[in-house]
């Protein structure tokens, strides 16, 4: 398919796409994506496995060719100015792409030289980044001897060595245990404080994306909702009510007239509670013996996604 250049690319946008699409055979991996991400924003593309997040990143970083539509990154068209795009971006791959036969320092130096940085610059930047990511003591260790969390940190350090204007992080916490995940988020936070750049993040741990300025939900290659995390969560309502029990029909029969449709997952039914003053104590009194547990908690982005992703639930809740 012939792809025309972007009509009038807006220079203040770090990333702009118009109908960006990618098909693999009959499978539409990314479907007419429209993005307009201003410079400096921390943007999160959220969606389950296979929703097209990596494919989107690959198109935006020139590693995959769009089958239709257009995209520009840092003011350069991804098809016609691919080398210029690659000069402006940093990319941390979903799968760690470090050379295990080299040390931490050597990995950084190799990446820096590929980007034509001088030895002095590489040394200075490595010092700063290894300090920032708590890897200073391990700088002469072979990558093969690092823990998963340390490797991920090194992946990220390498991705920003050349001070990219746009950083792409593809599932930076995938496969890590909870403490390492927290560590990685702390590093990303510190990094954002110290460097001015646009960050494009993907994750399927949706609840982790609350630090983003703006998020979009992706499912089957299409964006089904977008906004700031606070506004999305606020529009969802103040509470999620979760009820575990054996007779779900009875529970929904009792509560749906008041709370609307519920999301059933196994032996748990979840309700959106739109009212801050809702009396959970009264509710408890009404529930019968088939109920095993009642919990209420503040919603997170994962709840928002689950609800807007289900047509029977999203009716009363437009975003």
């Amino acid at each position: 398919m012939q792809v025309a250049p972007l009509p009038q690319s807006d220079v203040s946008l770090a990333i702009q796409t118009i109908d960006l699409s990618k098909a693999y055979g009959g499978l539409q991996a990314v479907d007419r994506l429209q993005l307009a991400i201003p410079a400096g924003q921390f943007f999160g593309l959220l969606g389950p496995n296979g929703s097209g997040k990596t494919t989107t990143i690959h198109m935006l970083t020139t590693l995959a060719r769009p089958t239709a539509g257009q995209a520009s990154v840092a003011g350069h068209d991804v098809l016609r100015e691919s080398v210029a795009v690659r000069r402006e971006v940093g990319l941390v791959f979903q799968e760690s792409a470090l050379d295990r036969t080299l040390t931490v320092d050597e990995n950084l130096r190799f990446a820096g030289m590929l980007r034509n940085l001088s030895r002095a610059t590489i040394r200075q930047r490595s010092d700063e980044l290894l300090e920032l990511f708590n890897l200073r003591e391990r700088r002469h260790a072979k990558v093969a001897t690092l823990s998963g969390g340390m490797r991920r940190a090194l992946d990220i350090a390498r991705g920003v060595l050349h001070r990219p204007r746009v950083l792409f992080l593809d599932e930076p916490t995938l496969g890590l245990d909870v403490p390492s995940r927290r560590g990685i988020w702390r590093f990303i936070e510190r990094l954002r404080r110290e460097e001015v750049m646009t960050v494009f993040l993907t994750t399927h741990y949706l609840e982790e994306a609350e630090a983003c300025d703006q998020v979009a939900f992706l499912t089957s290659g299409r964006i089904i909702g977008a906004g700031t995390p606070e506004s999305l969560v606020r529009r969802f309502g103040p509470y999620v009510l979760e009820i575990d029990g054996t007779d779900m029909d009875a529970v929904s029969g009792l509560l749906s007239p008041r709370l609307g449709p519920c999301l059933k997952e196994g032996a748990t039914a979840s309700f959106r509670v739109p009212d801050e003053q809702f009396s959970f104590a009264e509710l408890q009194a009404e529930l019968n013996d088939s109920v095993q547990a009642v919990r209420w908690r503040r919603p997170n982005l994962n709840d928002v996604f689950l609800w807007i992703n289900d047509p029977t639930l999203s009716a009363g809740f437009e975003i």
Partner: protein
Amino acid sequence: MTWRPVWALIERELMRMVRQRGRLVSALVRPLIWLLVIGAGFGTLLGDAASGGYQRFLSPGLLGMVMLFAAMLVSLSVVYDKEFGIMRLLIISPLPHYWVVIAKTVSGMVVAVVQAAAFAVLLALMGYIGGAVSLPLLVLGLVATALACASLGMLIAVWSSTLDNFAVVMNFVIFPVFFLSGALYPVQQLPDILKIVAAINPFTYGVDLLKHALVSGLAPPLGPDFTIAIDITVLLGFAVLAVFVACLRFSHESAAGLLDFLRG
């Protein structure tokens, strides 16, 4: 065009070579065994006149062998890079993609030349290289042959997706390339069919160029078979063609980039 990225790849390849000391040692021991065992055996078979002479005849072919294996190991490193994701780091760097192919080929060439030079020193110390040796021709022969071998390796690497099918390639490409060349026997004395195969095989011309450098003084069937000009033309022609095809195969973008470049 900037050279630092190319140097980064060469440096990494050399670092690997030094670290994988076992590989380096076996790269030098393998041809040594050929020289001492096969060389002595064939020498005896060929009779007194040729004995000693045959081992000298063998040294260009064995230098070629060192480079063929070295270049293959570097292209194996391309496959390794693909498998472990490092290739992605290369294609996300701001280099045109065809430049990645060229840089990897050059790094293969450098490793091959370094190993062959080490082997040449060994041969000289053992007395198998001596007499009328042309040093400039030797350097030219090493560089041109290493380039052709590395290009062949790159051609194979862009078609191999896993380390497994690379082993198959070793058997069906490397060994025929080595045996069906003038490395072990003079091309003129091969049966007609094999003569044609050897004439098509670019490796033959690398060995021939090294024969010009090392054994041009040996009695006719043992000396070079082609002229220096033909050797160089074939080696460079093959390298350019192989790298070109490898670029086309490597990525859409490098194919498009190369075509733009050719259109001017």
